[in-house]
Each structure stands twice: as C-alpha cells, then as structure tokens.
C-alpha cells in the first residue's frame, strides 16, 4: 500500500491520501476527525460518519501523521461565534504543551502508552492538551489503549472526602423518585448507605422544577448526612439558576450541578453560558461548606447532546463531548460524569457503541484533567442489557474510573432507564480490590457497616434507631 498525506494551502486545510487507486480527501479538521471516528449511530444520523470502512482508515492514517500543532492553528468550531472555542484557545498553556509540541497524533498515542511516561507526566501536559487533540488521539486508540492510559492518570478532588485516589472507586448514590416523595427518597438513600454507596455524592435528580421541593430535598439530604455524620456531599441536580436561588435563600447547597455540552449553542439550549457557570460557582463557594476542599461543581455530559440540540456545527459527537470536558475543567469540578447510554439508540445504538463511548469519554476526561466518572446505562430501545453494563463496568473499573452510579436494583424509577446498582459497585470493588474514598471507608468501619473490607450482612444499631424525620411514619 502506498499513500501520502499533506495539507494543501488554502483557508481550510485539506488533507488527502492515496490508498491503492483511490484518493481520499478531507476538508478541514472537523471532517477528518468525524470520518476517523469509530462507527456510531449519532454520527450516521448527522451525516458525518465514514462512508466506508476504508475511508475511515484513510482518515486515521492521515490523522496519525498530523502534528498536534495543527490543532492550534485550526478550530473545529469558529472562534468568533463560539465561546467554548474561545475558552479552549485562550486557556491553552504553551508551557505545558512544550513536552509534546513536536509530536504527531500517532506519536502522541505512543508517548501516552510509553513505559517511561507516567500519570504525573501526563498530568503535567494536561493544560497543553486541547479537547480536539484528546479526541484525535482517542480515535487512533483501541479499547485497551484507552484503558491502559486512563489507568495511569489520577485526578484527585476534595470537598468532604477525597475523590479519585488510585485503588479507589466512589459511588454516587442516586435515590430518585417519580414524585420527589421525601420518604421514598430517604428509603433509597438508606438502602444505598447500607450497601456502602454514597461517597462520590448523594445526588437526587428531581422530577419537579419547583424550588420549594428542591429545598425540601436538600434539607432531607442534609438531615441524613448530619444524623449519621457521613463524610460526603449532597446535591439536588437542578438547573444552575435554581441552585443560585437556593444558595441565595440559605439552603444547604454542597455542590452545584449542571448539564454541559461542547458548543456555545448547545449550552444555550441548556439555558447556560460560561458566565452563568462562573457566577453560580462563586455563589456556591461563598457558602464554604467543604471541610477538606473546595471543588464544588458537579457536571454531567453525554455524546450526542449537541446534535440533539441541533448545535453540532458538523463536528462528530465524540469530539464535541471532549470539548464539554474543556468547559468542565475551567470550573475545577469535584465530579464529572458522562451519562453514556441515556440518550438513546439514534446516538449510541448498541452495547458495543456504548462501551466504546464510555471508554473514550473516561479517557478523554482523564487526559484533560477532569475527575471522570461514568453513568453506565441504557434505555429499553437500545440494543443493550445488563450484560453490557457488566462488561462496561468491568472495563471502566480496570481503567480506574473515578465513580459510577448506584441506583436501587439498577432501575431508576424516575428517569426510566437502567444504570448500575449498589450491587454492581460492590461487585466491582470486590473483583478489582477497589476501596471507597478513604474518609468514607473509615466512616463505614466506624459505624459498623463494613467488616474486613466488605459490607456487613447486618444493619448496625445506629441505623436501627430512626434518625430521619422523613421516615417518621415508620415509627407508627
């Protein structure tokens, strides 16, 4: 096989390559990245996917020889019209970039995998890596590469406990209820705590957007946390404007949540911009509720959100997802997770596509310096089931995922999708020898929930005495 690749001189760089008798041409980085991307239904829906398997490989061959520096001279979304692009360009750190500045994308893959490059070396260049570079290199990596490199990287954050240490796996306790019923939520919270979940956060997706309801739920979580003196943080996953209002009325807001995406237009469809995120972060920080750290933001993302909002600018969904992590890292979050199978089969069709996306998202997040967890999940119209979540869960555990979800029985009765269960988290900790966040682990032992590193088979006396007012009816 003979091929050449070189950019031509014009406004938008063109790249071409000859494979056999076929000449493949790519107009601009966005086109090149999209065609190089592993197959997924969302890129097909957007009309961006490779037209053939050979064309996809042609794009990857071009990408492999592309200097990383090319990503500093061409943006995939216009600088003038998109504040996420401006954030990426303006915050790029040339000093951090220096160590990798002469590499091509293909050489960058080998550098990341090299035995002489450790997690701290990668962390040192993170501020020099743009999300487009991260997405590009991920497209040249097999699943095992995404796991091997992510496993090297630790991103450690703190609020009331320490998240992201090597050998640790945290769990977001997700006790959602279709009517936000405090007793129903409290029941799921206690079930999760008794199964050792909740060190990442105890976080409720509210069904209502009513601020009184949100305040009630925040007070409930605060009551539970204080009743059992749990070294963790709580969150009601409201829109930032609601969180801002809750902060201003003195509600016990630990973390500020927001869904974010990789373009300004998609973020606008979420009702946010970077200034609003900054304002709400400042307000949340002003409460000064973290005992050992001040990472107060919690972000959720997911491939396909920009296309869903008709705001993808001809860029593939995985590259846009990586751009969302550039948004996240600008706000020093405690937690970020991709909700990888939630959006549906028109974006990620089956278990194979969801697994690939989960590993890409985790890898790109860690590479960019974000504390990356994954909501490993599927809907009933996706070609996926519990075997797929088991596989993805195990792969991500090996990759060193920061946290996963804990939903009672894996069945979220409010959002109507299937995630991972408290049992799943125990399985992963058991088979890989992973432990909870250290402060939370010490609490589990102190209160009698943990015995010899495993969750106890009984309910400790502290939980028999009912300390939760929302569960008052149980005393009747």
């Amino acid at each position, binding site marked *: 096989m003979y091929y050449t690749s070189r950019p031509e001189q014009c406004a938008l760089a063109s790249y071409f390559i000859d494979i056999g008798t076929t000449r493949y041409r790519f107009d601009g980085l966005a086109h090149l990245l999209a065609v190089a991307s592993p197959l997924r239904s969302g890129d097909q829906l957007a009309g961006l996917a490779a037209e053939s398997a050979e064309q996809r490989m042609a794009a990857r061959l071009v990408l492999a020889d592309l200097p990383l520096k090319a990503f500093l001279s061409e943006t995939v979304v216009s600088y003038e019209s998109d504040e996420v692009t401006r954030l990426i360009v303006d915050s790029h750190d040339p000093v951090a970039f220096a160590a990798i500045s002469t590499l091509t994308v293909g050489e960058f893959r080998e550098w990341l995998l090299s035995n002489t490059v450790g997690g701290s070396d990668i962390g040192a260049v993170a501020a020099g890596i743009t999300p487009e570079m991260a997405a590009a290199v991920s497209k040249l990596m097999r699943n095992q590469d995404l796991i091997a490199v992510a496993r090297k990287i630790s991103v450690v954050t703190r609020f009331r406990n320490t998240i992201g240490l090597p050998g640790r796996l945290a769990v977001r306790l997700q006790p959602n209820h279709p009517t936000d019923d405090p007793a129903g939520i409290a029941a799921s919270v206690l079930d999760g705590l008794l199964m050792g979940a909740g060190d990442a956060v105890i976080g409720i997706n509210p069904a209502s957007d009513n601020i009184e309801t949100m305040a009630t739920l925040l007070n409930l979580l605060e009551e539970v946390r204080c009743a059992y003196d749990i070294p963790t943080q709580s969150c009601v996953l409201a829109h930032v404007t609601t969180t801002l209002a809750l902060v201003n009325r003195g509600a016990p807001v630990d973390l500020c949540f927001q869904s974010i995406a990789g373009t300004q237009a998609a973020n606008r469809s979420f009702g946010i911009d970077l200034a609003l995120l900054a304002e709400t972060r400042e307000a949340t920080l002003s409460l000064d509720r973290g005992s050992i750290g001040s990472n107060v933001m919690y972000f959720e993302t997911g491939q396909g959100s920009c296309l869903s909002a008709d705001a993808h600018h001809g860029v593939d969904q995985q590259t846009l997802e990586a751009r969302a992590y550039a948004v996240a890292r600008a706000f020093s979050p405690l937690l970020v997770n991709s909700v990888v199978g939630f959006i549906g*089969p028109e974006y990620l069709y089956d278990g194979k596509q969801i697994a690939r996306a989960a590993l890409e998202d985790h890898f790109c997040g860690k590479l960019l310096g974000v504390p990356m967890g994954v909501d490993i999940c599927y809907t009933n119209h996706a070609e996926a089931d519990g075997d797929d979540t088991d596989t993805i869960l195990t792969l991500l555990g090996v990759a060193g995922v920061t946290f996963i979800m804990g939903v009672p029985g894996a069945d979220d009765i409010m959002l109507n999708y299937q995630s991972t269960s408290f049992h799943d988290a125990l399985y992963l900790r058991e088979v890989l020898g992973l432990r909870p966040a250290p402060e939370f682990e010490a609490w589990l032992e102190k209160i009698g929930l943990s015995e010899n590193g495993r969750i106890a088979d009984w309910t400790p006396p502290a*939980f028999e005495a009912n300390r939760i007012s929302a569960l008052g009816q*149980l005393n009747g």
Partner: protein
Amino acid sequence: MADPPALHHRLGALTQARVLLGRAGQAMPTRALLDFQLDHARARDAVHAALDPAALSAAIKQPCMVVRSRALDRTEYLKRPDLGRLLHEDDGALLTQTGATLAIVVADGLSASAVHAHAAPLIAAIVERLPDWRIAPPVVALQARVALGDDIGEALGAELSLVLIGERPGLSAHDSLGAYLTWAPRRGRRDSERNCVSNIRPPHGLSYAAAADTIVALMRAARHLQLTGVALKDGTLSLPSPDAR
C-alpha cells in the same frame, strides 16, 4: 444472608424502587435478578412488537388507512428518527383532502403493545365526546414518530391532528400511550407547537375517560385560539417527551 432487620425491612413500603433486594455475595439474589430481567424482556418485546393494522382496524370498528414512514424496519426506525417523521413517498397518494376538523393518527411509536391495548377504547371515548365534529377515518402509521402526523394531517387537510403513539417502555410500564395534538399540521412544526397527554394506561395510568376529557378540552381550546403548543399549555399538561419526537 440473614433476614433483613426491622427498619431496613420496612423501607420497602415507602417506594417502588428496587430496595431491600438482599445479596448473594455482592450480587443480586436470583429472584431479584430474574424479576428485573423479566421486566426488561417485556419492555424489549414491546419495542420490537409489530403493529397489526387489521386487528387494530377491527378493534376501532372502522376501516383504517395504513401508511408507512420512510423508516422501513425497526432497526432503521431506531437509528433514524428523522425518517420516522416523514411519510413514505409511495403512501402520500393514499391520503386525500378531507376538510375534516380532526385527523386521528394511530402510530406504533416505541410500543405497539400500548397501541393495541389502549388506542381503540380511547378513540371511542374521544369520538363520543365530539358528535358535531368532522373526524376523518383513523390513519394507522407504521414505524412512526410523532411528527409523521404533520405530513398525514396536512395531506388530509385537517384543522387538527391527534397522534396516539406508543411511548418508550420503562421497566414498570411497557404499554403507556401518549396523545399529541397539533393545530394546522404541516411539515416543519416544532415540538413546542404541540400539546401532549401522556401515560394513558388504565388502570395504573390515566383512564380513557380522563384522557379523553383532557384531550377534548385541549382540542376545543385549540380551535378557539387557532393554535396548539406552549401558548395553550395548562398546568396539568406536559410538553412532549423527547423520546417519541
């Protein structure tokens, strides 16, 4: 493991969530595992069930026109929601201008099970509440998203279209029907220009009578205001869910 202690045991009365499952090692006990898989199996079957137009026509007690979207099978339907919103090129000719007040479209959506269970009695309840309206014979739409009702309503020349469609199955409900109302249906209508009544699923969800009352009230208001959507939204109604779009 031992029997769950008292407090823990009583939590289950407070929520439909799958709490108190117990453990086998770290894993779910066998019965809890199989219960979950049964619910998922029923949801999967509902997603992939084919709509039977003849049976539906018999249940509705009148002949129905059958049209297709441009998504020709379930796989394409799931991957290409855009095709599910467009009328098949060959089927437009089946529909002629009626000048009807209302076009009723019965669409498989993501649960043909829901359509077979609930569409016919709901249509009967709606029609009996509108004795003086000109209602076109129902159109059955296959591999259909909500917006396919725009093409159909436009081809029928109806003032209003009402799309009855199977909602995305959850583990707890695989046969929930949604009703989407659009004033002056035509291609390009936005979701914000529709009103939705969801979770029609007696006896657990909305009853036929209650759903028909709400739908008819909305339709009368829509005719009065000459619009549907956000401007017609009342506190008891929700915007369309993204899944069925």
